[in-house]
């Protein structure tokens, strides 16, 4: 990777989440960009403030208290650029996942082609699909017009027509939208993103120029067998910025201080993960942000990015939706305590009413983590399904599993609010079910997202701060895939501490989870010898030796099987979960 010059610019990154607003400060320390400190405050998008600026001020104020650096001027604006040492900051970026998801309507020709691509595009942003109009839609023009007026979408994505393909059909599909826009008051009109046959761009602009804000993006389906979502996503991120500036009071000021760099959090995370994936062409990168309003999962392979922002899987106000009709039945396979159906359902329903509340009792903690593991598993599964649907080669060859990635970055309340790192790691392992050899990094302050946004104004900062030790290394995970019966040895492991020379040896059996301690700061040599054609991500039966770094939990051999099948018997499952946590040191 080409060297990037370090300037002396400091940076304030503001991350406005659904529940918490964070102010992160980056500066040059010993010639390298470093994350310095974070302040936080509740997000104030809702009542009684209805102004995100309040929460931003409080978070920055908290940061000032921690760093001793004056960032806010007397008129409560951020001091940009810095005036003197210890005062002000040279640049600012804002990322956002607060605010109601965008109600989105998709209009496209064929359900399995351009409409499927448009749906994947919707899933890559903070949005909620409310209706789809296609060629096969049997509803009358009037019914579709009334649906648009009743639903009042924030965004309409229009796709259809491969390059040099259909154009007349697309135009006909747009008639209800054209009429609806004329009937809507200007302030209620949705933005329109056109990502179809580029030959139609001029026509689309002409049709809608007087009634709506139109964004033109490259065709998401240039050919029947080709999908290109990334470019449209970039344009869509700009549309989202405009939408939230209109809808969230105070964001306009923050955007002005940020020089227009206000970005959806999912987009920013995606950018950083995509960038990181360029580092090692042999492996991809995976990142997860488990928030109250959504779960974002990003996988990237040599710059090819797959992004899912699942607004129906957040662990806060949508908790009841996450678990669908019967929370107890849904969560039962993931529960590690025998609990009454009423207890589980009451907790899940109350979670929707008090999304910021933290579980403290053994029962509520069990439900919360069951919900987290289940929701993460669903999010990962959806992304994998979409990756498959795109016909990409970036899959493990098994629909339910990611290929080996390095690293996996996890963030979000469920991971960062616990001091029990073993529980955080186990949640990630159960939900994501990684394969091969990978490092799990805990991003306590959601720095990945901040740096994704920062990269647009200070690439050097994004590169150097990411290189530094700003994450907690939870563990190096080895997840072998084997068809051996449970209890059969599948892997011989040997770890030598390079400093002390001490060597740990052992065999790991199929179905087991083992931990070899190697504390942070230490280095060791790990030798892995698969048995019975077990695959550790290198091919069946291939052995390997690595120089490895220490981490909070050490080397974790997760031989529980892929896909993971948790025991159906509650008592057995409870016993196993306790055992795994015990192995992980808690």
């Amino acid at each position: 990777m080409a060297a990037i010059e370090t300037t002396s610019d400091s940076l304030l990154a503001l991350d406005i989440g659904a529940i918490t607003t964070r102010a992160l400060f980056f500066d040059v320390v010993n010639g390298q960009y470093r994350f310095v400190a974070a302040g936080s405050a509740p997000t104030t998008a809702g009542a009684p403030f209805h102004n995100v600026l309040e929460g931003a001020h409080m978070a920055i104020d908290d940061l000032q208290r921690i760093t001793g650096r004056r960032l806010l001027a007397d008129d409560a604006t951020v001091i940009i650029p810095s005036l003197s040492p210890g005062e002000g900051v040279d640049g600012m970026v804002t990322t956002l996942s607060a605010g109601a998801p965008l109600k989105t309507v998709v209009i496209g020709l064929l359900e399995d082609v351009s409409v499927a691509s448009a749906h994947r595009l919707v899933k890559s942003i903070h949005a909620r699909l409310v209706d789809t109009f296609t060629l096969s839609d049997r509803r009358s023009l009037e019914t579709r017009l009334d649906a648009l007026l009743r639903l009042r979408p924030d965004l309409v994505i229009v796709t259809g027509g491969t390059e040099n393909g259909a154009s007349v059909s697309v135009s006909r599909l747009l008639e209800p939208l054209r009429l609806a826009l004329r009937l809507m008051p200007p302030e209620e009109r949705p933005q329109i993103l056109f990502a179809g046959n580029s030959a139609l761009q001029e026509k689309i602009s002409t049709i809608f120029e007087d009634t709506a804000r139109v964004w033109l993006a490259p065709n998401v389906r240039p050919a029947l067998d080709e999908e290109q979502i990334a470019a449209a996503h970039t344009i869509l991120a700009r549309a989202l910025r405009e939408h939230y500036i209109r809808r969230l009071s105070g964001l306009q000021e923050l955007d002005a201080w940020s020089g227009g760099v206000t970005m959806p959090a999912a987009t920013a995370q995606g950018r950083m993960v995509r960038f990181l994936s360029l580092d090692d062409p042999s492996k991809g990168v995976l990142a997860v942000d488990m928030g109250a309003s959504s779960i974002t999962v990003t996988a990237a392979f040599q710059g090819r990015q797959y992004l899912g922002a699942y607004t129906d899987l957040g662990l806060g106000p949508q908790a009841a939706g996450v678990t669908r009709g019967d929370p107890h039945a849904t969560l039962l396979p993931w529960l590690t305590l025998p609990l009454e159906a009423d207890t589980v359902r009451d907790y899940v329903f109350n979670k929707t009413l008090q999304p910021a509340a933290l579980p403290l009792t053994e029962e509520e903690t069990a439900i919360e983590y069951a919900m987290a593991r289940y929701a993460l598993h669903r999010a990962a599964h959806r992304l994998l399904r979409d990756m498959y649907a795109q016909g990409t080669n970036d899959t493990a060859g098994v629909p339910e599993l990611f290929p080996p990635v390095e690293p996996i970055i996890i963030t979000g309340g469920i991971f960062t609010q616990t001091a029990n790192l073993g529980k955080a790691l186990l949640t990630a392992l159960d939900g994501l079910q990684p394969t091969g050899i990978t490092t799990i990094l805990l991003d306590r302050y959601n720095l990945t997202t901040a740096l994704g946004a920062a990269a647009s104004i200070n690439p050097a900062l994004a590169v150097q701060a990411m290189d530094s030790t700003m994450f907690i290394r939870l563990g190096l995970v080895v997840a072998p895939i084997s068809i051996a019966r449970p209890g059969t040895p599948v892997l011989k492991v040997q770890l030598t501490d390079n400093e002390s020379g001490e060597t740990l040896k052992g065999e790991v059996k199929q179905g087991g989870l083992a931990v070899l301690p190697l504390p942070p700061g230490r280095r060791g040599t790990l030798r892995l010898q698969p048995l019975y054609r077990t695959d550790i991500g290198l091919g069946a039966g291939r052995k390997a030796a690595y120089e490895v770094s220490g981490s909070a939990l050490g080397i974790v051999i997760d031989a529980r099987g892929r896909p993971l099948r948790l025991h159906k018997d509650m008592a057995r499952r409870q016993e196993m979960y306790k055992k795994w946590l015990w192995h992980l040191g808690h």
Partner: protein
Amino acid sequence: MSGLVAASYILPLTLIRRERAFPVQGRVLVRQGETVNPQTVVAEADLAPEHVLLNVAAALGVPPQKAASLLQCQEGERLTEGDVIAETPSKLFRKTFRSPASGTVVMLQGGKVLLRKEKDATPLRAVYPGTVVDIVEDRGVVIENTGALVQAAWGNGRSTYGVLRVVADSADAPLTSDRLDVSLRGSILVAGRCTEEEVFALASEISLRGLVLGSIPSRLAGIARKTPFPVLLTEGFGNLPMNAAAFELLGTSDGREASLNAQPYNFHRGTRPEVFLPLPASGQLIPPMPRELAPDDMVRVVSAPHRGEIGYVVRVLSEPHKFPNGIRAAAAVIRFAEEKQAIIPVANLQIIR
């Protein structure tokens, strides 16, 4: 972390300002400064419009441009069913196109007429008695008044106004079907909790106007949602009594008139269901505002253990506290009844007064 805490107010006397407005454009029917009662229709709107696109050109068998010249209506014009929309000039073979429904012509284009069918507009009632202090253009109003306020956790989306009847001797007393009879018709019932499905059916039968409870089991949520009158839960789901502060206020308000706005908790807007009891007040009152937690604040715990208990802040811890289950969070020491104390995450507290 800033110590700003969520708030769910239980106040014996306060000033409220409540927006009553449609999410879509409609018509505001009252003026600023006007006094409204709970039944006053402050605005109306067509929330689910129905349109019909009339292809006049095709019906008359003429080219679109010709059809446009034959139209006898204009945009914005109201038509009743059977009114002539267009007519050919020929006397021998005259063709007439009539409106298939009553409605308003909203668009004329290329020999086509778009007609919005006439429908009864949805009325928006004030729910809160008071003075209109602001108009939300084309959508609704802001109403101001003084009185007692009890904010809650869950509501079934309906609203009403009526007389409170307290049918529980304690915050813990269950509401059972044998407590309901026709003498309660038209009243808003206040009780501790309810676990009986039959209560909702019987309450509907005797035309109860509203129900304020501490909690119901979540298995009854679907029934409560479909109940034709407002249902409001101060604590949420489970088998919890109404919190002491709410019961103290509502339990002593038997016979008083109350507004019951059981709007669901809106995470993005931060609005909560609530009971408002209008009361005259003298002097200057200001609406309560969230603030940082401070010693002696009265708080309610919203999560187990101590869920639903009312306590007072002894002190806010300066550093995050590590709880036995591994959660590390900003926390405060809370004093409950009988001098019992516990450390509770700030995220699990609501300032109530």
